[in-house]
């Protein structure tokens, strides 16, 4: 059940690089990351790749496989024909460090800019009461494993380095939505979403949603509702106030 596959893997660093050709063994049930590891162990000991969990939980092994942003550990070899060439390249939206490893510090900078959860002042630890239906919306967004595939895909920054300063990307706009929908968060998030994090750049193409390995409905459930709230509020600040007060927990 083993066969030999033709792999093309991008090798190089910030200075430049090229696709390297490899003939490599593939066994039943394997995923692309297994093959990359086999290359490391047998043909290219210094091939750089990030990974941790090998189970789709940590979001480390992001790359582009035949041009599509994916997790290497969740891409099964059985999705390719045996004679198909499998091309693995690093995420395009971020600067290359070496081989398949990119510099994703952009994301950590954006994460640091989003104002943290503001706990309600009148509640002590242990006193929080929230209904399951009210936490579910934000919980969906907290499934995010920070693989940054959505960031890699979004056309606003994919080939537009110049937009990175003003646009936080789907992952962090979703983080703002998550806090905005948190039943007990005590901060106004909507103004900042629009003015500081670039929600206006998003034209709801849903490309981010398509690549999300956690199947989070980023566009439909986070970005569009966030846009609607911002619009409502522009005309009527009371709408926003009302929505926050209305979502106070009943006790």
């Amino acid at each position, binding site marked *: 059940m083993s066969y030999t596959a033709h792999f093309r893997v991008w090798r190089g660093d910030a200075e430049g690089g090229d696709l390297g050709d490899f003939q490599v063994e593939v066994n039943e049930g394997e995923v692309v990351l297994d093959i990359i590891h086999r290359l490391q162990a047998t043909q290219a000991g210094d091939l750089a790749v*990030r990974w*941790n969990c090998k189970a789709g939980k940590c979001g480390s092994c992001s790359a582009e496989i035949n041009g599509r942003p994916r997790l290497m550990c*969740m891409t*099964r070899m059985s999705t390719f024909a045996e004679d198909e060439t499998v091309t693995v390249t690093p995420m395009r939206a971020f600067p290359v460090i070496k081989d398949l490893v990119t510099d994703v510090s952009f994301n950590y900078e954006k994460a*640091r800019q989003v104002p943290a959860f503001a706990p309600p002042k009148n509640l002590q630890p*242990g006193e929080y*009461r929230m*209904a399951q239906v009210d936490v579910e919306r*934000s919980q969906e967004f907290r499934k995010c494993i920070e693989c940054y595939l959505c960031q890699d895909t979004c056309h606003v920054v994919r080939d537009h380095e110049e937009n990175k300063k003003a646009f936080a990307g789907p992952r962090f706009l979703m983080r703002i939505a998550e806090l905005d929908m948190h039943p007990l968060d005590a901060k106004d998030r909507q103004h900042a979403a629009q003015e500081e994090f670039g929600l206006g750049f998003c034209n709801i193409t849903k490309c981010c949603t398509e690549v999300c390995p956690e199947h989070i409905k980023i566009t439909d459930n986070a970005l569009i509702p966030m846009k609607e709230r911002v619009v409502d509020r522009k005309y009527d600040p009371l709408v926003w106030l009302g929505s926050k007060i209305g979502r106070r927990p009943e006790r």
Partner: protein
Amino acid sequence: MTETEKHNYDVIVIGAGGAGLRAAIAAREAGMRVAVICKSLFGKAHTVMAEGGIAASMGNVNSNDNWQVHFRDTMRGGKFLNNWRMAELHAKEAPQRVWELETYGALFDRTVDGKISQRNFGGHEYPRLAHVGDRTGLELIRTLQQKIVSLQQDDGQGGPASDGKLKVFAECTITELLKDDGGRISGAFGYWRESGRFVLFRAPAVILATGGIGKSFKVTSNSWEYTGDGHALALRAGSTLLNMEFVQFHPTGMVWPPSVKGILVTESVRGDGGVLRNSDGKRFMFNYVPSVFRGQYAETEEEGDRWYTDPDHNKRPPELLPRDEVARAINSEVKAGRGSPHGGVFLDIASRRSAEEILRRLPSMHHQFKELADVDITSEPMEVGPTCHYVMGGVEVDPDTAAAARVPGLFAAGEVAGGMHGSNRLGGNSLSDLLVFGRRAGVGAAEYVSALGGEYPAVTDAQIDEAAKSALAPFDAAGVDASENPYTLHQELQQSMNDLVGIIRKADEMEQALKTLDDLKARAQHVAVEGHRQFNPGWHLALDLRNMLAVSECVARAALIREESRGGHTRDDFPEMSSQWRQVNLICSLQPSGSVDVVQQPMVSMREDLIGLFETDELSKYLTNEELAQLPSKEA
């Protein structure tokens, strides 16, 4: 002198999992300047993989729960070998630590009255595990990560977030701890993965929070980071490791396809109603209830099934016995020829719960089996078998401050620390351990540093040169004849630990393992790597290999000495639990020659009020006759 980037801090934390991050938060809140260093990107530590939940006796689902019951369960799970003071602190403080997470922004699943929901898990008397579906670890790590950001924003005082007083150094690996002439911690030395350049962190206090050792075994649920670095760093710095023979094999890892063998199948599957069957379709766990647990578990399938809805009047099914029991049972069934096609047993939830409920409660398990094994767990059983999961042994620490033995300024918390879980850890007790002792380590380190009054131990240039030289050794060997490939050595190590010091152990096999380890150690001197220092996994593995070898030797030596079976240590040649051995901790230290020395150290007797929480009947299963004779008589 070696060209080296240098940083000065009050406290450095090695590890950015739950323990490390909670420690960093506590140390920063105590006014310290703190650096957090981790091998992977920030937010990717192993903690992210935890699934089932975090144990804390909040009593939200069953109000009979309290710290005493949690303490009892923990001691039982560990077969009374736990450091009882740690188990006590853990049980008492866990609820506060979980509630605190909500103030950082965590969103746990809720009960109908809006409190944090709690689920059943093996060995826990009441529903006790706070959870978020089956991705609790992700919630924990993201919450702590976001709390770190929040503290940085506070330090920015209204301006941009500032990392001047709390900084994360990601993809940076520590290879050596440094000490001054007086034997006190003075710093840590490491390299950047990205550039391969060296970096020195000067600090009077180091907190180890590096996690476990699973990558020394072939079949494991652990990631590449689990190479026992913290254990080895502590050893080399002159500290000691406690009870390293206790390694937890989780009963349910995936067994098929081969490339995913070992990946965890969460215990929540059983907590939520899943049952284990052999190839005859029989729920075999009913045959494997050991005498110490007799009377505490259901004896018929009907009673076990009733327990899920009426736990006050029924006993729990034996599928929820502590992990060591279930893992051994599966091992026996497979050996007896009643296994599944790929050498495991069947874990069936499909016939027991509706598809809708399975999808809601176990979404990431459903996803994992669908994507990796082409199995739909809402309609088919899973195939599962034991996988190396957790190490109970670890750095010997002071329970209250997390200070490591023998080395002033060194602290340890989380999986790298020993004692808390005795011979076997209960599910959910790790995440709570991380928070309780992570916080204590942060506070402990801050107190230690404050007491120094600004006088910080020195680091010499010679020490830096020495550390650099040892890290570069694998490059020098390149091109030399008879050089060794680190990947090959690693595979051989994993194979022998799995086969010879695995779930069932025998004296002659362990002696053989020790010989193999000696041989591997010698060959590891000649490990050579190609390429240059920039992001070079071959080089990284070559350095990790030294740690894995040292730690594996501790496991094998201690396992050979302990002539009894208890928790995560099963001896084919000594199948019984011995109350004499319960009084013994095995302490590993490193000899100047580089070999591991193991000594026996008597266990401190449990405090009277804690002993009083158990019935004499139960105690008689664990304690020696002399100990029993000394028990204060109980009032009627």
